[in-house]
């Protein structure tokens, strides 16, 4: 998974996997989903990310099974 934040436009891009994108679909005015041919989400673009997330902090936690 890759996370990229573009300060210039306050755009957050999260790529879950490097799959072939078949369609870009709008979820809401500031959220775009990139879907593969099976309709699975490959990536998400979030606009005005600072308003929607606590930037620049980021945390990751893996919970063991």
């Amino acid at each position: 998974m890759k996370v990229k934040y573009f300060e210039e436009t306050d755009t957050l891009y999260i790529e879950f996997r490097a799959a072939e994108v078949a369609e870009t679909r709008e979820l809401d005015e500031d959220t775009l989903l990139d879907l593969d041919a099976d309709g699975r989400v490959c990536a998400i673009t979030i606009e005005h990310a600072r308003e929607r997330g606590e930037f620049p902090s980021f945390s990751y936690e893996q919970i063991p099974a």
Partner: protein
Amino acid sequence: MAVDLVRARNAYLVVRLRRLGLWLIDLSDEGPRYFEMMRHRPDRATIRLEWIQWVIDNPKREVVRLDGRIRRWAAIAEAEGRYLRVVLLPDGETVHNAFFDRSFVP
């Protein structure tokens, strides 16, 4: 021919030919980072720059959002008539995003 150097930003150059009212978007150098990154993605790499320019110049519809960003749509004949959405930043010049929008209803 009068030429305005409208902006030079991160080597991203927009030149307007005043008399002809044309906009040339030189994206050979780095442009807005998100757009430049997305351009290289395989599904976006097929979108020609002239198509983007066509949409900017000949929108079927335009919507200006509350944040000032501008959305324009137009059909691209070379792409089976699919509608291309182009998103401009509030400056009205900088292309932020461009993708074929299946949800667009003319």
